[in-house]
């Protein structure tokens, strides 16, 4: 007969306010196989845990049920307490009396009866629990960082500097990300490229970092400490081992009118191109969509130009496999284009720009070499309007959240404009000014007070073109909703920051959760901001939510520390919730008949074939076997197994059956 100890927690009054906890303990105490049942104010407190430990010893308990909060909260706590008392931690289970009972029901007879049923259920389960040993798995001390913006760069460098290898994968031909596109950065107005470029070079030269640009993650298998990443190296059509990066091919390329991604569409580039002069690596790729040769089968001018014969026309995408122990997601964000806004001209007015485009105009490396000029006629705009919250905080547009960086960069844009166009007049339409951050508020004040930027609190209803001018119609809510109309030369929209394209698919490849806006979801909004729900995969930067550079860098370093901490162990201890195929005495050996339906069902390729052989070496049967390192314990195989030959530890058929039956047997 089992000797189960049951401990009912009041949780202060969280449980006892609606559940008669004394009655629960009393009735459970009378159950078959229950040796000891008490209730106590706070089971998770030190004295509470001591009660458990002492009872384990005093009554020689072979199972413990704690009726308290959700096991997702305190299961580790109570299992540890049991272990300290010498009881196998997997003989301890929790009944969820708080989240699933006391908090969701009014005080009543039924609520107490439900609590009794919930505890009973776990008592019946624990009777069928078996002691389990944790599983130890080796850790591959190499990290995969996805995304080569400032977040990925920082995370890579930090991990690499702890002495561990890093694979950095970047989708574009160069690392650098959005930060490389920025002109100057708030609140200090230092040049973005000046502070970023050294880091980019450091990445390229770091002995511990292997950089794959123009590459994307194809698939990720495995689990924490033991991932297998397949990476697609897109065909660059240029052999990087021989290319010297001289740039002659770029000069000669006849296809020159391709909108430059780096310049946010404001400038052009060639078909064979380096995205920007400071690119890392500073070698070109051929954009096969636009290249004459790939489009029409003729041209090959670059090949003729190339002194070292580096052009590889027939190069195909290559898929390589890297074994890594941890993954940092740093895929960044994107901004909405002007075409997202019908009220602002649907992107058809050339002089309505996004903030990112304005960055390029203001950048010394940009299409106008830093002069603010209208894309339409090259004239210097004398009147400019900045519209903050373009899309953001607008549930009607499906973007109810604040994009966080716009207030600051809009102030910066206005400031940069005033610095460059001294007789210019700038107006900012805003909803609220959110300038939380060191020296941020001061920065905005400077724009308003020193640089005489005209801040108007109100929304812009419409922007339309009339006689070469952009008519901006808005209201000033501080002046009692007075109509404001400005004839502007240029309008800059601080468009909302959104999840990068493909982030949903990437999340699904990695099995990490994402929010409704396709930003990756952190494991806990407060206490686990860089972890994901999938162990071994961490987040850095704006792929989690829009954020500015200092915050991104901080988060990247945080993720790097998580990786370094993981890599500080040679082995990882895992919960033994894994599937097991039965093995029996001869002549059966196993009831598994080897149909391998489980193999097709397993999401982790954890099912292996095992030949069971007799003493003479003859094959007796083919049976399934579970690779405990790969198994994640979903139990899908268990429900498929017709002969019930496979079972999952912690949720065995006997355990779940006992639970269900206990709820129904009176």
């Amino acid at each position: 007969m089992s000797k189960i100890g049951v401990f009912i927690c009041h949780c202060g009054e969280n449980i006892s306010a609606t559940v008669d906890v004394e009655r629960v303990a009393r009735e459970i105490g009378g159950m078959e196989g229950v040796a000891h049942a008490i209730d106590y104010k706070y089971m998770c407190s030190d004295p509470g845990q001591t009660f458990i430990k002492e009872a384990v010893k005093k009554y020689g308990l072979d199972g413990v049920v704690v009726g308290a909060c959700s096991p997702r909260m305190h299961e580790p706590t109570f299992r540890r307490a049991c272990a300290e008392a010498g009881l196998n931690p997997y003989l301890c289970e929790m009944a969820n009396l708080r989240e699933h009972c006391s908090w969701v029901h009014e005080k009543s007879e039924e609520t107490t009866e439900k609590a009794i049923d919930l505890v009973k259920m776990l008592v019946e389960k624990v009777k069928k629990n078996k002691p389990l040993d944790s599983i130890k798995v080796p850790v591959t001390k190499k990290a995969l960082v996805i995304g080569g913006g400032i977040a990925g760069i920082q995370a890579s460098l930090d991990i690499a500097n702890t002495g561990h290898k890093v694979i950095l994968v970047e989708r574009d031909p160069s690392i650098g990300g959005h930060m490389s596109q920025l002109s100057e950065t708030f609140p200090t107005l230092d040049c973005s490229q000046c502070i970023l470029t050294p880091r980019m070079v450091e990445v390229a030269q770091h002995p511990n970092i292997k950089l794959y640009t123009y590459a994307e993650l194809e698939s990720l298998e495995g689990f924490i400490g033991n991932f297998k990443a397949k990476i697609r190296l897109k065909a660059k059509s240029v052999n990087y081992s021989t290319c010297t990066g001289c740039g002659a091919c770029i000069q000669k390329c006849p296809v020159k009118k391709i909108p430059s991604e780096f310049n946010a569409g404001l400038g052009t580039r060639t078909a064979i191109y380096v995205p920007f002069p400071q690119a890392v690596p500073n070698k070109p790729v051929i954009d096969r969509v636009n290249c004459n040769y790939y489009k029409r089968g003729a041209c090959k001018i670059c090949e003729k130009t190339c002194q070292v014969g580096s052009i590889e026309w027939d190069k195909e995408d290559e898929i390589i496999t890297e074994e890594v122990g941890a993954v940092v997601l740093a895929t960044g964000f994107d901004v909405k284009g002007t075409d997202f806004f019908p009220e602002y001209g649907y992107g058809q007015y050339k002089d309505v720009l996004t903030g990112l485009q304005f960055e390029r105009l203001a950048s010394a490396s940009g299409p106008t070499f830093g002069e603010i000029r209208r894309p339409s006629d090259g004239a210097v705009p004398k009147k400019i309007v900045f519209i903050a919250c373009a899309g953001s905080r607008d549930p009607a547009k499906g973007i109810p959240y604040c994009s966080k960086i716009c207030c600051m960069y809009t102030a910066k844009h206005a400031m940069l404009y005033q610095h460059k166009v001294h007789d210019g007049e700038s107006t900012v339409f805003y909803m609220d000014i959110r300038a939380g951050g060191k020296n941020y508020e001061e920065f905005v004040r400077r724009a308003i007070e020193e640089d005489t930027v005209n801040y108007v609190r109100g929304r812009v209803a419409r922007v339309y073109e009339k006689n070469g001018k952009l008519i901006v119609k808005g209201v000033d809510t501080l002046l009692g909703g007075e109509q404001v109309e400005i004839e502007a030369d240029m309008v800059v929209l601080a468009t909302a920051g959104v999840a990068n394209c493909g982030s949903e698919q990437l999340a699904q490849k990695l099995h990490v959760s994402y929010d409704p806006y396709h930003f990756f979801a952190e494991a806990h909004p407060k206490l686990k901001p860089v972890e994901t729900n999938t162990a071994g995969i961490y987040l850095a930067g704006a792929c989690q939510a829009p954020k500015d550079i200092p915050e991104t860098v901080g988060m990247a370093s945080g993720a790097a520390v998580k990786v370094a901490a993981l890599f500080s162990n040679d082995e990882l201890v895992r919960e033994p919730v894994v599937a097991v195929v039965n093995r029996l005495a001869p002549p059966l050996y196993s009831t598994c008949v080897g149909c391998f339906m489980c193999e097709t069902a397993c999401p982790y390729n954890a099912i292996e074939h095992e030949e069971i052989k007799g003493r003479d070496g003859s094959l007796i049967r083919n049976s399934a076997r579970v690779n405990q390192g790969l198994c994640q314990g979903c139990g899908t195989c268990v429900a498929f197994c017709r002969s019930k030959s496979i079972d999952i530890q912690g949720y065995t058929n006997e355990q779940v059956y006992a639970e269900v039956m206990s709820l129904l047997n009176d």
Partner: protein
Amino acid sequence: METKYISQSGIEQWFDAIVTSGKRVFAPVNSRGQVDFKPVKKLSEVADEYIQTTQSIKASVYPKAEVLFSYEKVNGKVNLTDFDPESVPETVLWKVHPCDAAGFKPLSAIFNWDTTDKLHNAHLAKTSVISFSCSAADESCFCTSVNGSPGNTAGSDIQLTMLPDGGAIVEILSPKGEALVALSPSVFVADKGEKKEKYLVDLPVRFNLEEVNAKLNKAFNSTVWKEQSERCLGCGACAFVCPTCACFDIQEDAHGSKGRRIRCWDACGFALFTLHTSGHNPREHQSQRWRQRILHKFFYMPERLSVVGCTGCGRCSRACPVDMNILEHITSIAKQ
């Protein structure tokens, strides 16, 4: 033992009288494309044209599943409710074939060979058997080869032999039979002197039981078992339709603090039947299980219980999905 005559209308009257007496009556009924014993209230429900019911009448004295006892734990005390013989209703089995009636003897022999089986005996005590002699048979029938006959009265309380006029010769064979007659005494008139044998089907003897017994005595290690059993699928169809197969399993139907212990049919043809907990199975192969079936019926039972475990009803041959014809197999053993 007395012989009487009953007319067609007399049979109807008598049948109604039995039903009215409150006894439950089981008789062959044609439904779902099969003829099998079912509770009936009217003579018109009883099937006419058939050779043999699919299942034997065994279930009336040895149900498919039966509660041995039930229990409930209340406040630390266990309340036990034992099987109550009084709960078994008075039952009349109507139109039983002689081969079925003959099955009661081997069945009871098994249920009472060491201890007496309360349940079986209670059913038996409350059961009266009205058999009908056989005027037809098919290629699976072989009662005459196993000490039986189409007019065998063993196991019957009354036997009717149907006459062309719709009436019947009535053989009253036991006090239970007399009691049934007493329910409607007026319909039973003096025997008209008809010879019963005239109305029985002629079924030649197909093998010599003594000879088979002698052969089986030395056949344990014969290759015949493997040869015969190759196509056997190992199901329990033969055992479950058999009037004498008595193997059972004991199962627990427990839910929380209460439960019941159930006895249900089992079959020696199942691989699980002899499987030990260790995984060892003394009858690992189907050939061994087939051997057990034949030896048990034709050798062990005659030797130990002095009764043949087969009544020649032929049901197993008819029910077998792969035509394991017992007559053919026994005949071939006899000829070896």
